[in-house]
């Protein structure tokens, strides 16, 4: 069963497997354990740091597609500038906060890299033409997760109806309270301009 006569990818695979199975000849168990532990911290930490780096507004508006379109629109809304100075950045609403969901969203975002490379929205005109499609993705995502990213800050359990306007009180105490509607059903276009809304429910 010597591997010298084996060729091709199967041979490589078999040799690799044998190395993995064999006990270490030169390195002590302590070194391997501690080294593996340290390497794990470095790799894991590095990975998360890199992910967090892509989870900042600075990163998002590093590309002109985001900086010149959606970011400019956000700046005119209450989620950017308001009386108390608490504001939402891009990832607060567009990236799930839980790790698993976040990684899933980051994997989806590889499509956005593709779009960046091939310039699918690299002009204002292209962006406007695609706005409805892009908005629909976000509406669908928020509808599916019951507006999770809204609720990370706006928790229904702590809403004080007496502080709300009569209109808001009426809607929130009925449709939202019963779970019949979720935030995005009514609050479309609060942070960015709306696309052509022909045929969208509620318009």
């Amino acid at each position, binding site marked *: 069963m010597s591997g010298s006569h084996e060729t091709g990818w199967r041979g490589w695979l078999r040799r690799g497997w044998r190395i993995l199975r064999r006990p270490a000849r030169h390195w002590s168990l302590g070194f391997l354990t501690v080294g593996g532990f340290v390497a794990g911290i470095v790799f894991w930490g590095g990975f998360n740091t890199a992910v967090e780096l892509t989870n900042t507004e600075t990163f998002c508006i590093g590309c002109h597609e985001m900086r010149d379109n959606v970011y400019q629109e956000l700046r*005119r*809304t*209450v989620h950017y500038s308001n009386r108390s100075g608490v504001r939402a950045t891009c990832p607060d609403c567009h990236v799930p906060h839980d790790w698993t969901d976040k990684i899933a969203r980051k994997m989806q975002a590889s499509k956005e890299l593709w779009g960046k490379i091939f310039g699918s929205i690299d002009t204002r005109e292209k962006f406007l033409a695609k706005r409805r499609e892009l908005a629909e993705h976000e509406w669908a995502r928020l509808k599916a997760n019951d507006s999770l990213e809204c609720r990370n800050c706006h928790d229904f359990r702590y809403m004080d109806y007496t502080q709300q*306007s*009569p*209109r808001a009180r*009426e809607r929130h105490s009925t449709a939202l309270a019963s779970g019949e509607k979720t935030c995005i059903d009514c609050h479309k*276009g*609060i942070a960015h*301009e*709306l*696309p*052509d*809304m022909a045929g969208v429910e*509620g*318009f």
Partner: protein
Amino acid sequence: MKRLHRSILAAVVLVGSAWALAQGALSWGIRGAVPVPETHPAPEWPRVEESATRRARDYPMQPPTIPHKIDNYQVDLNAHKCMSCHSRRRVEESGAPMVSVTHYMDRDGNFLAEVSPRRYFCTQCHVVQHLARPPVDNDFKDVGALITEAADRP
């Protein structure tokens, strides 16, 4: 003689108005008592009425006021935020008053399926109400009050 009268009158008016100005007796109007070359301090930003109850109209043709905030409501070619509650199709769910039937008519009186383009921009006629003291007093009386007054007069 007539000329002398006129000059005296002009002099009196001139001196009188100069005195009135110096006393600050003349109204500065909405601008307030700040000389023209100086910058006026910005007045406080009044809050917008948020009652969601209807307000009586001062005359039958008056466009009703908007009793709620409309900050950042998008009204353009793409979306009409107002109509997402006030349109014919939406009032059942929203409970908002439907825009009047005249908004669905073109200028020749033909009825349209959707709101008429000439009525598209609500804030041309309908405005929010600020919770501010009117800078100028207003003694407007609506037609009902006038009729009552006329009837009371002997």
